């Protein structure tokens, strides 16, 4: 971790006197979060029964947008880790955030299968899908809290 911290790339992201280093990586990470969690809220709200007249079938592309945003945030997240590896690797908050994401990713896969597994135009939301949506939404909120607190602790 110390070697990584002292590497030229890590030092550049962390210390370069340009907005194109750390500030831009952090901002792109935030854009990705808006897109990923923003689309997740819309999907979860609908599955939890807000806006019951919204047809569920056409919402499916939201999952594709969420995965697109996830890969952006994985890439920018790795860069942010490289910029500050020692503090992050020893931070409980950081590992809590990783754990929350690792639980949530398969949940999202299962949620998509639970809703769209049998039909492309579902009309009813099963109790299981509702539970998955509620847990997934709570995990996203937890992920945002852990990530944001990480900047201060």
């Amino acid at each position, binding site marked *: 971790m110390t070697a990584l911290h002292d590497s030229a790339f890590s030092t550049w992201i962390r210390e370069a006197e340009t907005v194109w280093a750390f*500030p831009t990586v952090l901002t792109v990470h935030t854009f990705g979060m*808006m897109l990923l969690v923003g689309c997740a809220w819309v999907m979860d709200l609908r599955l939890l029964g807000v806006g019951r007249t919204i047809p569920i079938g056409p919402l499916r592309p*939201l999952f594709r947008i969420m995965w697109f945003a996830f890969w952006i945030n994985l890439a920018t997240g790795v860069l942010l880790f490289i910029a500050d590896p020692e503090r992050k690797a020893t931070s409980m908050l950081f590992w809590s955030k990783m754990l929350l994401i690792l639980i949530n990713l398969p949940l999202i896969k299962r949620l998509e299968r639970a809703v769209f597994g049998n039909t492309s135009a579902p009309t009813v939301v099963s109790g299981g899908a509702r539970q998955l949506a509620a847990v997934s939404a709570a995990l996203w909120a937890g992920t945002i*809290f852990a990530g944001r607190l990480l900047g201060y602790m």
Partner: protein
Amino acid sequence: MSELITPGNLSHLHLLLNHFPTVGLTVAFALLIVSILSDSEAMKHDTMRPTALGVLFAIAVMTLPVFTTGLAAEGAIEKLPGVSKAAMDAHENSALLAFVVLELAGASAWFGLWRWRRTRRIPPGITILTFVLSAVSLGLMTIAASIGGGIRHPEILADPSTAGAQSVFSMSAAGVAFFVNGRGHQWVWPTLESAHFVGMTLWFGILLIANLRLMGWFTAIPYPSLHRLLPWALLGFGVNEVSGMMFYIATPKGYTTNVVFYWKLIFLLIAAADLLYLTVWPQAWRTEAGTPVHVRERVIGAAALATFVAVMYCGRMLPFLGNSF
């Protein structure tokens, strides 16, 4: 634009904008009273009352830069001879309470408009609530404006020795600041930041899909069904306004001299206008599944999405661009 961020200009801006919560609120309140007293069904349900609620919502939004430029104006004149710090604090504290009540009135007015779009009726309960909140905020705004006028015009005070006396109708800005970053409150700022991000993703996600629908994506979804999600976007805005104002009140100097903060405010006003558009726009409401999309809706939607990105960019870049923190 940073050369425009001078104490003198910000003071001037505060003096210009403060007509929104005083003169503007009076006009909105008068429209609301006429629509309540009128026997005309059209005035109640089609014309004047929705207009009154729309103006009230706009005034509530425009009061955000009034409050924020007020703290900048304080920085501009606090060292001038004859300016009383106590009078400025009294003005700020009474303005804060008036602002909070006006924002509640604006939220209530928005909810009335949202219901009106769906049912062509504004529920009497919402009309009464909006009336009471706007009446109270108009009274509080009058007190705040009167104390504010006395800061540089002691001649208008009946008894100059009362300059700097706190009004009983006030909310302590120093108390808010202490709650946010006082001793032993280290957990408050990071928690508010987290809430700020949760609120942001909530309003962004909902306004994103609503705008995308009007731009021609998700065409199988009738727009009126997405309209049902809009109160959750307002909730996200509300969480962000409360947390954002707490940051601002706790550390005003990090913002008042930072040009990026003013850009964020400008983009935020445009984002609020987009929320109003999504709430009441007749062509949007008539966009059923498969309805072809007008180029006007595409342009408005694209501009709105660019604005949201700009709000977020300015917020995230506040500490890095400009000179704050």
